[in-house]
């Protein structure tokens, strides 16, 4: 009997300790981030254009720019940032358990992910779609001519499923050759192992640029799927959600208003345009709703630049860009016929 009592007492003691260790009031993500002093932003294993390492070990890319923009908005310093590179198997767990503050990686916004995984997708910063690459001298100019073709594809992705669907819907009898690694996929295609490669058009354009003779290949016009690539945050913290979405919106809006990292100081000092003055915090109090400083949007543009600048730098023709033309694509501003559209900032 004595022993049992001792046992129960110790169990109770352990339980009490466990309860006492759990904090009673939950803090908001912004408070946690401010206390920590830096933003933890999750990207994936290096992927050309979106997030990659340079030879000095620094991160760069379109999605990295989003991370830097969030850090600039909160701290006024893009370096107050920890980039976490996490494999796709663990990306959502690691956001859910609080290891990452936001996900800025090429995650496709789908309904099931948005509604079932406890996370919220925000404004896409890149609209991608699946397509085909073929040898130019094969004479194929449309995906519907791929009857009976062997197509190289990376396994275990929606890409593979989309290919099967496309083949069945159009009675093309395409046989898929699957690979784990996209470098091997491309190598096989180049050595004649398959007639075409399928994948996201953006990444294929990047890879094609690295083929021995890029001009020998072309991307077919058809697009098989919609891949809106968007940042995501944990469900349930509206303030944090607002901060991240309006960071992306601010970058798009800045491009629309013609504010760049080069002229932002000038415009803040001299511009008469009310929209610009409001956005850069010269007048109005847009920042209050976000719980940030008055110059949050100014810092984003000053340190990271507007959406167009970042697109050119990393996806477009910039020095670190992978050369995907923007004109006429879904990633152009809405004023140019694209989908990049920000709600008014007023």
């Amino acid at each position, binding site marked *: 009997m004595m022993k049992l009592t001792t046992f129960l007492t110790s169990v109770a003691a352990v339980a009490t300790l*466990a309860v006492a*260790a*759990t*904090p009673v009031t*939950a803090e908001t993500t912004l408070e*946690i981030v401010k206390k920590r002093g830096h933003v933890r932003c999750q990207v994936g*294993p*290096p*992927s*050309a*254009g979106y997030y*990659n*390492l*340079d*030879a*000095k*070990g*620094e991160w760069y890319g379109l999605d990295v720019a989003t991370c830097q923009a969030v850090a600039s908005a909160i701290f006024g310093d893009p370096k107050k940032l*920890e*980039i*976490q*590179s*996490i*494999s796709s*198997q*663990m990306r959502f*767990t*690691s956001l859910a*358990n*609080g*290891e990452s503050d936001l996900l800025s990686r090429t995650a496709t916004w789908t309904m099931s992910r948005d509604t079932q995984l406890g996370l919220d997708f925000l404004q896409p910063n890149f609209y991608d779609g699946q397509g085909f690459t073929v040898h130019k001298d094969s004479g194929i100019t449309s995906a519907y001519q791929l009857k009976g073709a062997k197509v190289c594809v990376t396994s275990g992705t929606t890409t593979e499923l989309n290919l099967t669907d496309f083949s069945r819907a159009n009675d093309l009898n395409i046989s898929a050759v699957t690979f784990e*690694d996209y*470098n091997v996929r*491309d190598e096989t295609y180049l050595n004649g192992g398959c007639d075409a490669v399928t994948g996201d058009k953006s990444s294929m354009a*990047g*890879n094609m*640029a*690295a*083929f*021995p003779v890029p001009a020998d290949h072309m991307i077919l016009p058809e697009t098989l799927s919609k891949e809106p690539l968007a940042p995501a945050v944990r469900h349930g913290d509206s303030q944090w959600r607002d901060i991240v979405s309006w960071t992306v919106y601010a970058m798009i809006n800045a491009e629309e208003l013609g504010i760049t990292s080069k002229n932002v100081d000038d415009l803040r000092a001299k511009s008469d345009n009310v929209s610009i003055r409001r956005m850069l915090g010269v007048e109005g109090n847009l920042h209050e709703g976000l719980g940030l400083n008055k110059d949050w949007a100014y810092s984003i543009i000053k340190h990271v630049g507007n959406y167009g600048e970042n697109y050119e730098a990393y996806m477009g023709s910039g020095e*670190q*860009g*992978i050369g995907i033309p923007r004109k006429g694509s879904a990633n152009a501003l809405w004023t140019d016929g694209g989908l990049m559209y920000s709600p008014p900032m007023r």
Partner: protein
Amino acid sequence: MTVVNEKKTTARAAPSSETSVLGWMRKNLFGSAFNSILTVVTLYVIYLTVKGLWSWGIADAVWIADTRRQCFGISIDGACWAGVIAWLDNIFYGRYPREELWRINLGLVLLIIWMVPLWLPRVKAKIFIGLSTVFLYPFLAGYLFAGGDKDIFMQVMVSAAILCLIGNTLHSIISVMTGNSLAETLIRVLNVKNASEKSQRNILIAILGVGFALVYVWQMGWYVESVSWTKWGGLFLTMVIAGIGIASALPGGIFLALGRRSNLPVIRIISTAFIELFRSVPLITVLFMATTMFPLFMPEGFILNKLTQVIIAVCLFNACYMAETVRAGLQAIPKGQFEGAHTIGLGYWGTMGFIVMPQALKHMIPNIVGIFIGLLKDTTLVSIIGLFDILSMLRAISKDTPWLGLHKEPLLFGAMLFFLLCFVMSKYSRHMEAKLSTTHKN
């Protein structure tokens, strides 16, 4: 009539089939028609492989270029080693700040200084040197690599490590030159040889105390900038994880194996359950558990750094494998050895430490080194949970815009590096075997 040849018959030279190269070839390579065909075909395959590798990897290769496009421009069929060369810092040191790289190099140099005495002749107390490498060096290296402010525990351990390093080095130099230990030399220099043993010991302890105090005061002013573990990577990270894993696997394994063979039921059951649990789960699962599940069990906001979690997981996992190897070694020791040890009055730890373990470990060297080599290669799994070890770095080259698509050369380079490391370990284990097996020569 008898004929007696009193002169020694001159020895004839061995037939040319036994000595000349041609004879050897005829015997071994072209003995039969089938062998001849095999030889010719094999030679041709070797020729093709070597020729291909030579022309791709060396003759047509590009060593200096700024981008892969330039490589293609210079030679379209050759390897583009320029990319690997541009990324060497990343491959070896990961994202560690470039101006702080000397700290990693210094850490390596200190490790070599610390361990060289183990191979030198005439140096006494090698066991102490070995143990201090395992238990003190990690603190010094840990501070050197991580930096930042030291808490009181870290200050004490760093001071102890520095003192030990100085002591070790002096001791080995003196030993190699004179054959005496550091303590003996100190006693002689201070001219207290005739004092009682107790006062000699007191003097040595006093010297140690003063040394510690001096080092402690010095290290209080020693500060290196903090480098977050998230910046660790490349071969450096691989070596950190594998090094700690290797250093802790053997002691952990020995204790678990002894526990499993223990007569005390609780210890036996716990050890057995622990070993079986970790051994029946793949390493990748253990790593996932450690990094994703573990934080869920902890109170909110409690985040142990991921590198620590991974290192703990690797240590536990390999200790369990090691335990079974050690147990196999223990079982090979005949019962007579245990009985003999008991007869001369040794207790449990005496029997194990002086009689059984030394014999068992000697038999287990090939297996132990096998586990170490496996461990070194297994560390590449940490790339899946987002640490930038050498494999992730090698793969990242093909995503960097200037070197987009460059993936064969880095992987080949990595394969060569791993081969070198594993081959050295394997060779060293053969050397150890040969050195320790003198008593068992047939």
